[in-house]
């Protein structure tokens, strides 16, 4: 049995423990049986085991499989970028900034507005890269401001209160931003302007769309920059110190408030970047855009081990791939119909599964002792 990463408090096992063990075993069995059925089905579609599991199994072609993996990785990179914000804020303040997904949505909306204005002016077509850099910068600035204002208005007055209170407040903030977007910008989905062919079309290189390559490259670069910022600059050192112990950090002469604002700003900027990437990839944005990616990004942060920068990215890719491949890989061979509708459910199931099997995430958590209860 996998270790749960937490020392046993009781020696006797209660009913809940048995139930949890049962759930873990059931989950693993489901995954293993599904995978086996899939492999059988790939080897030979008429295999009796595969037939038994799902009478109309078809299997996947290599190209389909590669397409799923690539789209999962690209989506996962975006989740990873959003997850960085969750992870950093959780590391420093010890609460889930539920509204972080809405910052991402604000980024996507800002990108939509700016790019449409640029398209009206004709700059979008004539100088695509330049306009892209421009909308990224604008969106990062707007998102940074949103995150900082959010911290100042809603979270700073609540510092030091019972931990559920800032969480409830952040739910309120999330709800507010979503509905503010409805009343200001209207409830309909809004489109990004058309992108050049090299972004849309599949390239000869492994038949991948340019947009997906772009997403992965941008995510990798920004990840590297962030890693440098956190690990090798004075401000980053202050962030890590505050995450370790805010009081001691304050005693060492670190301005805790400024550091926390900086954490929110960096998280916001990353979310803004992710918002633009989302816009380029899906070219449509609506007020609920932030909700599910936000939850999934939080799952990614947990899966990777909260407080871990690399973990957030790895978790993001894990979640992205799992939700794109999982339904077809595990559920379809088991005879579940209409599996693509269940991709969100699969993403949540991954979160629940990870918390059941390994609550500290893949790489373990980096949290101050008092938050590890």
């Amino acid at each position, binding site marked *: 049995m996998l270790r749960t990463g937490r020392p046993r408090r009781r020696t006797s096992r*209660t009913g*809940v423990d048995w139930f*949890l063990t049962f*759930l873990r075993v059931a989950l693993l069995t489901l995954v293993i049986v599904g995978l086996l059925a899939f492999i059988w089905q790939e080897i030979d579609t008429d295999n009796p085991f595969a037939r038994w599991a799902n009478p109309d199994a078809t299997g996947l072609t290599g190209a389909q499989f590669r397409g799923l993996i690539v789209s999962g990785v690209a989506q996962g990179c975006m989740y990873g970028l959003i997850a960085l914000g969750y992870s950093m804020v959780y590391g420093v303040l010890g*609460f*889930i900034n539920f509204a972080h997904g809405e910052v991402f949505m604000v980024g996507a909306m800002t990108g*939509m*507005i700016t790019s*449409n*204005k640029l398209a009206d002016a004709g700059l979008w077509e004539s100088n695509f890269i330049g306009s892209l850099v421009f909308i990224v910068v604008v969106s990062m600035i707007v998102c940074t401001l949103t995150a900082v204002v959010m911290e100042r*208005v*809603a979270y*700073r*007055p*609540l510092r*030091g*209160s*019972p*931990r*559920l*209170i*800032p*969480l*409830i407040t952040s*739910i*309120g*903030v999330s*709800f*507010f*931003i979503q*509905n*503010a977007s*409805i*009343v*200001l*910008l*209207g409830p309909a989905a809004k489109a990004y302007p058309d992108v050049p062919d090299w972004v849309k079309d599949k390239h000869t290189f492994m038949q991948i769309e340019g947009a997906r390559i772009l997403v992965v490259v941008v995510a990798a670069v920004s990840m590297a920059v962030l890693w440098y910022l956190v690990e090798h600059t004075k401000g980053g050192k202050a962030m890590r110190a505050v995450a370790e112990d805010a009081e001691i950090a*304050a005693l060492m002469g670190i301005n*805790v*408030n400024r550091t926390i604002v900086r954490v929110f700003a960096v998280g916001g900027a990353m979310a803004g970047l992710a918002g633009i990437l989302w816009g380029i990839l899906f070219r449509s944005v609506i007020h609920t855009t932030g*909700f599910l990616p936000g*939850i999934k990004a*939080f*799952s990614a942060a*947990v899966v990777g081990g909260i407080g871990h920068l690399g973990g957030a990215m790895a978790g993001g890719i894990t979640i992205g791939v799992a939700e794109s491949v999982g339904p077809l890989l595990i559920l379809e061979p088991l005879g*579940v*119909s*209409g*599996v693509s*509708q*269940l991709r*969100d*459910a699969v993403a*949540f*199931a991954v*979160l*629940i599964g990870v*918390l*059941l099997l390994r609550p500290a995430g893949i790489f373990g958590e980096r949290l101050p002792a008092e938050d590890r*209860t």
Partner: protein
Amino acid sequence: MTAVMPPGTATAAAAAPVPPAPTRPVLARDWRRLARMAAVGAVAQIFIALSNMPVRLDERVVVKPVLSLGYLTLLIVPFAAGHRVGHQIKREGTPVHAAGAHEVAGGAACGALAAGGLSLLAVLLANFDLREPLVNWSPMLAELLAFGNSTSFAVVIWLLIGAAVGASGGLMRLLGPRTRRAAVTIAITVAGVAVMEPLVVDLAEGMGLEALTDRLYARRGGLEWVSALVLAAVAGILAVLGRGRLREARNRIAVQEGAKRTRTNFGLILLTGAALVILPLFAGKLTNELLANVGLFVLLALGLNIVVGLAGILDLGYVAFFAVGSYTAAVLTAATSPRIHPEMPWLVALIFVVVITGLVGLFIGAPVIRMRGDYLAIVTLGFGEIIRLLFLSDWLSGTFGGSQGITKIPGAGIFGLTSVAGTDPRRVFYLVLAFCAIAIYVSWRLERSRLGRAWMAVREDETVAEAMGINTVNVKLLAFVVGAILGSFSGAIFSAKVGSVFPNSFLILVSIVILVVVIFGGMGSIVGVIAGSAVLIGVLGGPKQPGLLAEFSEFKLLIYGALLIWMMLARPEGLIPSVRRSRELHQEEMAQDAWLKGQVEDDTANGDTATAPAT
């Protein structure tokens, strides 16, 4: 006056030190504070104007012909800014200056600057076209802002209005406590009667008092200005005469103990119950529909109150139980249910509903119960969404109808005596009332039971509770199951009332709305939760159900979000707090008070309270 710090103002105080002068000339102000207040007010004004609230609500008249709800939403901001700018934090050691003319001057300046946001907006509206991203950037808004005149008129008039309203906000600080209370009573009465117009008209018709309402309300909605004045006068007189007595009576009840208190409570409950039984007989369809909706949310909120309020588990997927209850009842009673259609009587189905929802509660609860609070919140949210997605999926559409849902659900039959369906809101209301009574009784008994005390102990400190010999896992799991079952009642009634269930009735936002209701009313307080759902669901409306202010339906979720933030910042214990919960939340302040009074000799009390964030 002791040094009570409202929560949330502590850091504001640190950021903006109160000037030390005890008495001040009119123009000596804390200009930074004023500028900040005005900037916040101006942004709020522009946001409200661009959210289309004024235009949409302009149709709803409060006092005919001077004031519509649309203008009211614009006037509230400068008033609040003008009032707030004179706010002083009373703390030991900082001198408090007396209120004087400077309050009015400051209020006027702040109000004018805040309303200046609208002046700016009027100019922008006239010169730019931003209709592309901002859907409400319309000539209608410009017209509303300018009262039908030119742009320059709008600029001047809003500065003037802002100054006047802000000054009156500042003036509120000059009034004595009794006068202020009377003024607030008058405002609330007039606004309340205007808002409750459909309700009052409906009730008056039932009792044959049309003459009264004809006189009170103008034909196309809103109070007549004469009747508004009369109402204000009556409310004022009543406030001056009766206010002290009401408070006295309340205090008298509060100090009663033991059997006497129980008897008074019993009497009060009996009176309320009788009123609720008799009232619907006179009320029309609209009132009963409204009451039934409120009742459904009271049921849900009472269930969530046990989970969040008593046991302190933040369950964001509470809608899952509502959904399971609805779907179970629908599948068991409806003949049109796709796969299984036993067509049971509703009451028999209810037994299955309770059993199944209890099991689902156990199933969802068991894996999450060991997680820390915030993970638990997200995971329950995930479960809530998974359950909706399962009901929606093609995979289970053979049983639950997928996105088509289950329709033509028969009403709830009670022992063959009567059938309750959505076509008769009065019967629905009585059914809801009966279940509310059960839920209230259950909550009330549980709160005072060994289990309830265990819940509260777990809420306050899980480790200590465990050390005291409470089996925290089982106790929390029980809270989950009890909450689930109360929610499932609401679901079963909901499916019988509406006659159909669709996955889209069970979005996550339903959970959030219930959470807002519980938090607004007061976590852990039964009366608070009931009052919370009456005010929020009754006036603003539920996720899909219209309230008294049907015009607000576009904005109610926005308001719910803002309310949630504001409640957490300003009054986390809720409207009608439970005594224990508010003590818990204000522990530090109480310790501080006690320390200042010299009741606590130990210096550590001071050390504990001095953990304000470093600035």
